[in-house]
């Protein structure tokens, strides 16, 4: 069980090498094919989980509010998100006449690209990182922050005041909250002494970093919720003020792409939280990839729990919380971590 997916990968590699030999292709092609297979595997993982998460989110939200949630399509409403996918696929693709057509179209595609790209460095299990970069966590930060520009494009391209205002809010929020997010990761990186994901996981062999860095974990949770544009920081969307924010003019499959990106971001951020603070894919008895899934889903459930409990805050309070509370606190955390590392340099 432990090396189930690794064995599947090795089998694929053997077959691909055989195939390239049969077709008389250069050896490098085997590598390209393997990259393609990894990409497809990750995409499948992301999309399947997104579908599950849509259902899970609605069910959890309902249970937290003493409701039942979707329960009509299939047993206990389990086919609800499939029905939604079919509905979205069948919808008319509307592009407003006044929209900047290329930017409008591109935004929906661009939003999903960085979202999927960050999965390259996520350790799904022991030796199960697609690319174990030596700057893994830095790559995650760099790539995930480019998703902001796709949302700005969506808002600008729609040529609609609500979209533009919404996307301005997204940019303000995501750029501001990037800072405490990165600073909170820094504490972990200082202890691990490496940006590489496998090193960070290995450094947590004896003790999870949540024990050494509880404040950083708290800051990470708050900043990540804001980065994901989820409640209580779901300000880019708001029926009363700015309709659906940057997504106002989108419908059908383009809207579904934004929706998928949202949930894919949720999974990747939860995965990073699990890797940095909860020991990544390590754990007793069960295979490592299963431990990883359990930890990721625990984080996802926690995010959902927060979203459906705490009411949203005002935009100026959001900025105040960030610049006057989280950023100084994360700086203090880095300072304290540094001092502690110097004092107990055995770690």
């Amino acid at each position, binding site marked *: 069980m432990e090396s189930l997916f690794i064995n599947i990968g090795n089998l694929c590699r053997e077959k691909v090498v055989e195939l390239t030999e049969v077709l008389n292709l250069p050896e490098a092609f085997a590598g390209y094919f393997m990259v393609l297979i990894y990409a497809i595997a990750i995409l499948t993982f992301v999309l399947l989980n997104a579908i599950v998460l849509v259902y899970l989110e609605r069910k*959890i939200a309902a*249970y937290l*509010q*003493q409701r039942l949630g979707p329960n009509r399509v299939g047993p206990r409403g389990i086919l609800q998100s499939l029905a939604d996918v079919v509905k979205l696929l069948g919808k008319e693709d509307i592009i407003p006449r006044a929209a900047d057509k290329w930017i409008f179209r591109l935004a929906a595609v661009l939003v999903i690209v960085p979202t999927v790209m960050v999965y390259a460095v996520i350790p799904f299990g022991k030796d199960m990182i697609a690319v174990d970069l030596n700057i893994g966590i830095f790559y995650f930060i760099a790539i995930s922050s480019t998703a902001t520009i796709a949302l700005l494009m969506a808002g600008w391209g729609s040529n609609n005041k609500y979209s533009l205002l919404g996307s301005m809010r997204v940019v303000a929020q995501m750029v501001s909250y990037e800072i405490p997010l990165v600073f909170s990761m820094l504490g972990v990186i200082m202890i691990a002494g490496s940006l590489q994901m496998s090193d960070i996981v290995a450094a947590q062999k004896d003790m999870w970093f949540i024990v050494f860095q509880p404040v950083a974990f708290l800051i990470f949770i708050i900043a990540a919720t804001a980065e994901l544009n989820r409640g209580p920081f779901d300000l880019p969307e708001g029926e009363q003020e700015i309709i659906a924010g940057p997504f106002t003019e989108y419908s059908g499959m383009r809207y579904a792409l934004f929706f998928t990106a949202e949930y894919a971001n949720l999974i990747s951020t939860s995965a990073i939280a699990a890797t940095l603070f909860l020991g990544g894919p390590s754990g007793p008895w069960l295979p490592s990839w299963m431990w990883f899934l359990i930890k990721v889903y625990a984080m996802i459930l926690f995010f959902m*729990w*927060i979203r*459906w*409990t705490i009411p949203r805050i005002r935009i100026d309070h959001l900025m105040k919380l960030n610049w006057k509370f989280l950023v100084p606190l994360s700086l203090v955390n880095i300072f304290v971590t540094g001092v502690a590392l110097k004092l107990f340099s055995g770690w």
Partner: protein
Amino acid sequence: MYGYGLLKGLRVTLGNFFGRAVTEQYPERRPFISPRFHGFFQLDLKKCNGCGVCSLSCPNGAIQVTSERDENKKRFVTGYKISLGYCLFCGLCVEACPRDALRFTQEFELSSYRREDFVCDLLEIEKREKICSREPA
């Protein structure tokens, strides 16, 4: 303590999560109706003598009672029509009945497709139900 409210809220929703839902799954499961619910009307033919006090007490004039007298000059009811479209379900007719012949049932699904269907002949309904349940008249 700063942030205590957040934890309190989280505890409340966690309790909800493991608690029961308040949603009623109406068509599949019948809802609980309290005994004093103002639903449909039931007329006890043995008690009703067609005096028409219910009709007089109705603020909207939704009840039409017709009656005749038999050979002993005793009044008996010949028609009892109630127009649910005008009915407020205030219960004044039930209160007013001197012989407790009229009472509310727990039946609440009273919508219909046509305006005419709102006029219900309680007498007819009572007679039909007698036949259905094969009670000795």
